[in-house]
């Protein structure tokens, strides 16, 4: 790697060599896996959730969604917390911390009672974990005293957070469920219980596909299926939204957030960071592609920093957060009309079809030349720009001010990938 930039960050008082962590999931459930992940370059690992409860898993347990031949748009997982003995998991964590002292070991735990949470927190301390994450959010538990059902109950979140933070001084992170309207409520409840940070999001309750062969959801388990957690690229927009809402909340704005949801590339990770997250967690992309994806996350992030003159992550963390504002606050005084580059246009007519059927009939079609031409109906919605398959063919053009509105200097996005 010829590029070299400082990716280190202090997260909840722990020095991390980079912000890229594995989230608590099948990708970090034993010694060998975590060791391999560390060696591949991950800064830390949230070890697969450990409870007193030992899971009894179904088969098969995964499914995925695709669009236009592109698989893994989203991923469904029915696996619960670790199915290994509790003691063995903590022993693994202890050995990993011993063998990889510079890497961060975060123990994710889940109890079903005050006593269980306290007992698990004690074991985390004995194992030498750097961080403890409380799993208040797994949507596929076979017990309703655990997981997402707890995460939507602020009283239980506070109580269980307190059970951990009263037991140990290790910083405690509460992992949130997105299956709720206002995540701020359980997040505030966790802080009230002594949590130092919040991680979001866990998976979204889903039915990915219906199998017509068995008339059941996927995956089909003996002719049946269950609602369970959806993750991967498809959920990233939802995750970013929750992260921004948490970080903008008055009582949470100083809380350190770990962003989770659909991260596959350095770019995805950087999006969470510019909203204000100080750590990111990944599972689905690792399940699809393996631990090696961290290589391009690190290298790509360094190149991004190099291009923009950042020397450390703190230089850009949170930069985009103030620019997420309520809809009523947007400047609605102008329309940016699209500009058509006739030389680049290949004459496919997709802009014409979409503008007519999905927007404002603002494009006329020259049948002979096979070229679009903008007419006066255009409102500057940019649907055409979004459907055009040619890079740089349709771009933001003339700024038209609505009648009677004051012209001002405005910021415009000019470059589209």
């Amino acid at each position, binding site marked *: 790697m010829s590029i070299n930039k400082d990716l280190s960050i202090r997260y909840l008082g722990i020095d991390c060599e980079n912000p890229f962590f594995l989230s608590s999931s099948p990708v970090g459930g034993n010694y060998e896996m975590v060791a391999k992940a560390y060696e591949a370059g991950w800064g830390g690992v949230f070890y697969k959730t450990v409870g007193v409860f030992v899971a009894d898993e179904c088969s098969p347990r995964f499914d995925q969604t695709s669009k*236009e*031949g*592109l698989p893994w748009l989203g991923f469904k997982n029915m696996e619960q917390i670790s199915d290994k003995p509790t003691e063995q998991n903590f022993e693994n964590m202890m050995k990993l911390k011993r063998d990889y002292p510079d890497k961060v070991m975060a123990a994710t735990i889940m109890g079903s009672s005050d006593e269980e949470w306290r007992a698990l927190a004690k074991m985390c301390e004995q194992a030498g974990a750097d961080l403890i994450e409380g799993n208040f959010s797994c949507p596929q538990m076979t017990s309703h005293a655990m997981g997402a059902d707890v995460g939507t109950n602020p009283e239980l979140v506070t109580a269980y957070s307190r059970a951990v933070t009263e037991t140990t001084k290790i910083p405690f992170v509460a992992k949130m469920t997105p299956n709720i309207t206002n995540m701020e409520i359980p997040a505030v409840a966790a802080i009230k219980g002594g949590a130092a940070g919040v991680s979001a999001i866990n998976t979204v309750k889903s039915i990915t596909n219906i199998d017509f062969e068995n008339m059941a959801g996927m995956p089909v388990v003996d002719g049946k299926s269950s609602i369970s957690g959806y993750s991967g690229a498809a959920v990233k927009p939802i995750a970013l939204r929750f992260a921004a809402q948490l970080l903008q909340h008055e009582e949470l704005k100083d809380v350190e957030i770990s962003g989770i949801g659909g991260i596959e590339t350095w770019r995805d990770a950087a999006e969470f960071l510019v909203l204000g997250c100080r750590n990111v967690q990944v599972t689905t992309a690792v399940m699809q592609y393996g631990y090696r994806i961290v290589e391009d996350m690190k290298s790509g992030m360094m190149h991004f920093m190099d291009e923009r003159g950042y020397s450390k992550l703190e230089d850009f963390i949170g930069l985009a957060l103030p620019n997420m504002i309520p809809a009523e606050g947007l400047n609605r005084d102008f329309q940016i009309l699209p500009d058509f580059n006739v030389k680049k246009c*290949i*004459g*496919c*007519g*997709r802009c*014409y*079809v979409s503008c007519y059927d999905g927007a404002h009939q603002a494009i006329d*079609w020259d*049948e002979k030349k*096979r070229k679009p031409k903008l007419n006066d109906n255009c409102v500057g919605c940019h649907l055409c720009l979004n459907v055009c*398959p*040619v890079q740089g063919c349709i771009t933001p053009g003339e700024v038209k001010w609505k009648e009677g509105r004051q012209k001002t200097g405005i910021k415009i996005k000019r470059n589209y990938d």
Partner: protein
Amino acid sequence: MSKVTKAKYTSEASFGFMHRTAMEEAARCLLCYDAPCSKGCPAGTDPAKFIRSIRFRNPKGAAETIRENNILGGTCARVCPTGDLCEEACSRCGIDRPIEIGKLQRYAVEQEKTFKMKILKAPAKKKAGKVACVGAGPASLACAAELAKTGYRVTVFEKEKKAGGMLTYGIAPGRLPQAVVDHDAAQVKSLGVKFEFGKKVGDDIDLTEMDFDAVFIGAGLWGGNLPDIPGNSLAGVYTAVDFLKNARTMKEAFKFGNKVVVVGGGDVAVDCAVTAKLLGADDVRIVYRRTLEEAPGNMSEFQYALSLGIGTTTNMAPAELLGESKLEYAVFNGRDGKSGMKISADAIVFATGQKAEDLSKIMPMALNEKGWIKADAAGKTSIEKVFAGGDAVNGGGTVVEAVRAGKDAAASIIAYLEKRGVKQDVN
């Protein structure tokens, strides 16, 4: 060392799509407005529609779109020069490379077989009027299918034992597997078209004595062309028609030697060379009298030949064939008047165009000076009830052109029969 592909005579020249790869390719399609690809097909195939069906997970609908329009949809998917037709028109050429329309068509037609679909149906109530089609090649099959779909009763007379004409006897099976031709032909049969095999019209049958209300002649061109040069009657000298037919019918039992020269610059020449190579000849070369730029063959076919280790020599015309009773050497003269070469060869194949057999034996309609049938664009000949199309009219074209000619002639025949008002007979 170069990597030359080894293949069997009957192994397919290219992979087809599976469901996932077809979806990937369909996803590349821009789904154009007023799609240019759909205007590029002589047979009127609508790729934009069938690709959209694949994209929106309706492969059966895609199969219907193809089959309803082109009775030889499976064959055309394999042998069409798509690079000069629909794929050349593809808007995606403006970004990178065209959608592989031929291969998507192949995938869609394969769904018909996979799902045992029966797409075409002939009306239960037959129309008055019986039509004879001469030959079971592409033009005749297309004409017969159109007529049967409209409700006419059609009989196809074929001199060989199987349907397909040149598709069955004149194309290398790696490019067009027999099963694909058979499946297409089976669709014609399923419309109620009667086939009389082993009947050569003019020799075995006299159509003028039979009560057909109209006749379509899609007899093709089955006379091989041998140049008028010394030695052209030696053993080991073949016309392309005979060479390919021997290969298709005898397969590995066809013995023609180890060193083979194919003369010609069209797809047929490439087919002959590929056939010779795949049937075991070590040394196969194509010799063409002009340059590759001038060659009528599809460049992708020459590239395929090259991938099998078959080279092409240009600007060399055959001058003399030497040997006692059997070919030993072929002598060529350069186009520049200075160059020349003498090649030791066991066999030489002349793929230098086909000529007509005596077509007037079929029906006494007017022929042109080359012996091809004189017919207009609608397939009308000098005799009112006789129509014609395909190679016997155009002197040798593509399969898709023959399909077009057969369809056009069917439309003319239907118009003729309706105008003539053949009495409705009770079925």
